């Protein structure tokens, strides 16, 4: 209850300062939009369906891209974790690659895939693949060895061992990496969409810029934040809670 009160106070204050600054007209509304203007932009965006379409297109892309990186990342991470040679060579490369913003791949992606959705997907994958890989590698190492032994002992081999034992056993250790991977995928997608105009939230945001409609820009920014927050709060928090219940781990806070 106290916590809810603090939340309400904080956001009400933020909103109040925004309204105050906007209403004081220190800057013209096309530079500093009012809350009313943003609400108006949100309303009309949803009313004419353009936001719905943008959300659907963006979600589709990020889900495909993220799914690819999760599958690839798990295979890569498992390989790096279980092979000394790969660990020593590729392990270091992966860590150093992580400092590279995924949008740097954009020029290459354009040449390799052409100006189409695949180029965007490539950037999304490059954005989140490393997080997932490193998380999987780490999770595989942190996972108590005994699970693998018990699994083998009970007759699990090869893919079955991976699917029924190693993967579920390492989930609690990789869920934060999966979450980080999702955040990177989402950011990479929006960035790529801003560079390449074809539906999607990133493009709608750039349209706001082209029309000099800062209310629309802020409206889309709010949408991007909201979607990221909802996925994090529902999908990943839910997954964490589920794992905690099953494993009997104390809630992480």
């Amino acid at each position, binding site marked *: 209850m106290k916590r809810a009160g603090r939340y309400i106070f904080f956001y009400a204050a933020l909103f109040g300062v925004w309204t105050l600054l906007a209403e004081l007209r220190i800057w013209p509304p096309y530079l500093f939009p009012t809350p009313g203007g943003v609400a108006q932009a949100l309303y009309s965006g949803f009313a004419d369906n353009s936001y719905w379409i943008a959300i659907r297109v963006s979600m589709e892309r990020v889900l495909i891209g993220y799914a690819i990186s999760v599958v690839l990342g798990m295979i890569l991470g498992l390989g790096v974790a279980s092979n000394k040679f790969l660990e020593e060579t590729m392990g270091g490369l992966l860590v150093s690659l992580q400092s590279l913003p995924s949008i740097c791949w954009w020029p290459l992606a354009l040449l390799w895939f052409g100006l189409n959705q695949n180029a965007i997907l490539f950037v999304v994958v490059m954005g989140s693949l490393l997080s997932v890989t490193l998380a999987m590698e780490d999770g595989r190492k942190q996972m108590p060895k005994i699970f693998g032994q018990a699994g083998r002992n009970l*007759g699990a081999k090869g893919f*079955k061992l991976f699917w029924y034992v190693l993967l579920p056993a390492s989930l609690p250790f990789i869920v934060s990496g999966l979450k980080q991977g999702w955040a990177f995928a989402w950011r990479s997608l929006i960035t790529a969409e801003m560079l390449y105009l074809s539906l999607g939230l990133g493009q709608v945001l750039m349209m706001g810029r082209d029309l000099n409609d800062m209310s629309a820009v802020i409206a889309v920014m709010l949408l991007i934040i909201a979607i990221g927050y909802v996925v994090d709060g529902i999908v990943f928090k839910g997954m964490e809670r589920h794992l905690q219940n099953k494993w009997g781990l104390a809630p992480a806070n």
Partner: protein
Amino acid sequence: MSTSANNTPAHFPIPLDPRFPARAGRKLGPVSVGRPAIHQLPTNFKVELSDISLSYRTQTGERLLALDKINLDVRAGEFVCLVGPSGCGKSTLLHLIAGLNSQTSGQVMIDGKPVQGTGTDRILIFQEHGLFPWLSVGQNVEFGMKMKGIPKAERQEKVQHYLRLVHLAKFEKSYIHQLSGGMRQRVAIARALATEPDVLLMDEPFAALDAQTRDLLHDELERIWADTGRTIIFVTHNVREAIRLGDRVVLLTFRPGRVKSEFPVNLPRPRSLEDPEVALAAREVLDELRDEINRSLEAEYEAGVKPRIEPGVEA
């Protein structure tokens, strides 16, 4: 079961098994040569270890001999306990039999056939944490059968059967963390039995439990062993536990692990840790074990302090 409920011993809930009195006709006496009648199938060994050696390189680069030419034959249905000081490689030996590691030389044979790698004919029960926390109790028990490709209906039936066997039928849907330590080991036993292995390998399974729970599980294990006729190789550092459970106690030396001596235990079952005969037999094993424990302690206290275990002090 209900008929014998009146002569229930203090360590409830396992009533005296009507099967035991028949076996109780064995010769009394602390340790004597000769086997109980049911084990007299000649030369028909379930498990044969021949010249098992294991050496590995330590981090400093020197070669360490962990096991040195272990020879051990275990009859079908026999309950063998391996004892030895920590560091004698008794757990390692169990992992070798399970196929989780491989020996440097020598051979593990089951029913006269050499084995390589893991196999569901030999199931290992770990000291702790061997259960899968992401699965329910029932799913844990089901796991080995699922890997074997046994149809679901049959699996369900067996899950129920084996959970009843360890008195946990009501906990099929629970998760592992909701169970006590003793219950978890019972699940582990049910999970191991559900794959219907010929040989149960138990690696200090009760070491982390409190005394009462351990007593109870001794009774249960003895009953399950009598019911199912499995061959059991049981590793422990607790000599009394070994005498309490085993048909035979095998003593391993400290680094490198060798078979130092074997003690057939010919006491009537069911036994109890408190039986004077058990204590007496344990004393005999302990007298031999003491040297090994001292060697292991000396190795640990290389700095010069060399504590000795005095006669009469039990490990």
